[in-house]
């Protein structure tokens, strides 16, 4: 089984949240079972950016930000980076009426890999469902 992971899910695991037990259970089960984890390159930019935003705002110390990012980089996530991802993302953004084509890249990878997208972003979850893409919301 494969899952396309979005940044909200991984950040929830990397950083303390009010309720992250379900996410931890889901992700750590995937990891220990050796499930294939896939994502677009956008995942790396988003995770890094949110960690930096937290560091810049004073919620994270530099060493905590480093540790979170290093933990993320050590995850066995396969990057899917082809022209098809972006063509499909553009198509999905049009169909959803979105002005931007960022988060739909996760949906494009999920469709291309024929796997569910796992996210904590309710909007992304609903978008996936409306496009007929399987989605998990482990919260």
């Amino acid at each position, binding site marked *: 089984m494969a899952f396309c992971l979005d940044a909200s899910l991984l950040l929830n695991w990397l950083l*303390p*949240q009010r309720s992250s037990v379900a996410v931890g259970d889901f992700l750590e089960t995937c990891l*220990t079972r050796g499930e294939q984890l896939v994502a677009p390159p956008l995942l790396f930019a988003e995770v890094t950016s949110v960690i930096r935003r937290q560091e810049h705002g004073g919620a994270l110390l530099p060493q905590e930000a480093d540790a979170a990012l290093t933990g993320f980089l*050590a995850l*066995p996530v396969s990057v899917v980076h082809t022209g098809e991802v972006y063509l499909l993302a553009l198509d999905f953004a049009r169909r959803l009426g979105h002005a931007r084509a960022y988060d739909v890249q996760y949906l494009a990878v999920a469709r291309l890999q024929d796997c569910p997208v796992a996210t904590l972003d309710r909007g992304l979850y609903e978008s996936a469902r409306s496009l007929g893409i399987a989605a998990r919301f482990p919260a």
Partner: protein
Amino acid sequence: MLAYYVVVDDNATAPDAMLTVSEAARLLGRSIEQVRRYLREGKLRGRRIGRQWFIDRAALGKLYMPGTRRYLMVREAAAVMEAPKETMNEEIAELIRRVARNREAIRRRLGGDLRIDVVELLRIDREEH
């Protein structure tokens, strides 16, 4: 419907001492295209088998100056990738423990004031860019 797609990361075909282009790209934080350019320009040592490039694991760290934080981070990530399959589960278990320790250290320092809402932050980040 799109007619085809390509899965970039194909670990199964990489010889033991080598990395696929996508693995190297991930560890280096570079794009697939950049890694292919490094190979063409001779900045990375690799060899072609059929139509696919493979990169010598030992060559990977040479793109960074030893001792820099970035270098150490890349080496740490590479250590997980380089682990023999039989020790991979232990590496994953250690990674899970390490992330949990960092999470708990942050939680303790912040006390009950958990100001981090990643879903909201991500939504803001996506709207700003």
